[in-house]
């Protein structure tokens, strides 16, 4: 259910983008997302609910391509980067410092769309 809401929010963002775009948009073949691993979004579930959500919409048939961005932190004890792990309580392995700076992993980004010009737009 959570991912259904997330998908709905994604569709709303795409809808808003479309409205600010040229009135005649070519058919969208795929949508590229970047999803950080330190977010509330599960790529597999998003993928699953996407296929149901776009049926009979202007995005019908579009593929969702998700790139996962791993969590990377910076230890403020020694400035080294590290991959925070839940099992380690997100602390740095070098200095056991708490997770202060996140370099990446919080992304929820629509990177781009590919158009499919071989089929007419809906």
């Amino acid at each position, binding site marked *: 259910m959570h991912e259904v809401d997330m998908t709905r929010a994604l569709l709303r*963002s795409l809808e808003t983008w479309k409205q600010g775009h040229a009135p005649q948009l070519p058919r969208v073949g795929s949508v590229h997302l970047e999803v950080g691993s330190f977010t509330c979004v599960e790529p597999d579930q998003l993928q699953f609910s996407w296929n149901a959500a776009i049926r009979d919409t202007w995005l019908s048939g579009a593929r969702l391509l998700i790139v996962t961005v791993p969590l990377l932190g910076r230890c403020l004890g020694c400035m080294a980067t590290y991959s925070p792990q839940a099992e380690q*309580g997100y*602390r740095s392995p070098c200095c056991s410092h*708490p997770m202060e700076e996140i370099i990446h992993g919080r992304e*929820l*980004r629509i*990177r781009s769309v*590919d158009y499919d010009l*071989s089929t007419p737009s809906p």
Partner: protein
Amino acid sequence: MHMPLQDNLGLNLLAANEQQASHNREHFDQWRLLCLNIMSSPGAGKTSLLERSLAQLSGDLAMAVLEGDMTTQLDADRLGALGIPVVPITTGRCCHLDAGMVSGGLKLLCQRLDPAKLDLLWVENVGNLVCPAEFEVGEHLKVALLSVTEGDDKPLKYPVMFREADCVLITKIDLLPYLPVDVDRIEAHIHQVNPRCTVLRLSASSGEGFKAWHQWLWQQLAKHQGPLPLANPMPSPALTTAQG
């Protein structure tokens, strides 16, 4: 063969929601009120917190509540009994509030009062530790509650919520004598994912810890809108910040 063509969006997945959230926040700023987003798992004590805080603060602050976690009419009665406007927000089957729902609640609120007269707006979110953390509603501050009955691993299991919180309230501490739980460990886990946030311990049953919690609130109000013309002046600001 088709000729692929691409458009770069670089747009937040939740951009539509964020747009609406910014719009809500513009209203709040125009009305010079502070908006708090209160989040927790179901039953952690959000409504009980509100009950006690509203009762204690209503002499000094003009407040209203947007209630997104109305499980029963009883909740509405509990808060309504205090004479503070409570607007229920219908979420359908959605597991979080979004900015559009809050905007709808604001419209109803504005029919009942002049929002510019408010100092503080409480938004009680849907009981859920997952997605409310990602859906801004236009709040200035996020307050997450974690009850001592939930176990000390929750901050590491739902790290995004605790990372995003400005203040975490460890609730129901009156139950500590009966539970095999180490409250210092809970607090340490919160600070591991969010070293800068304020962590406070309280009990809505006994009232313990509310002085520090309200002091934190007064500090945030002062930061937000400068000194308020208050009937009763703010209690002396003994600074209570996060330890560790």
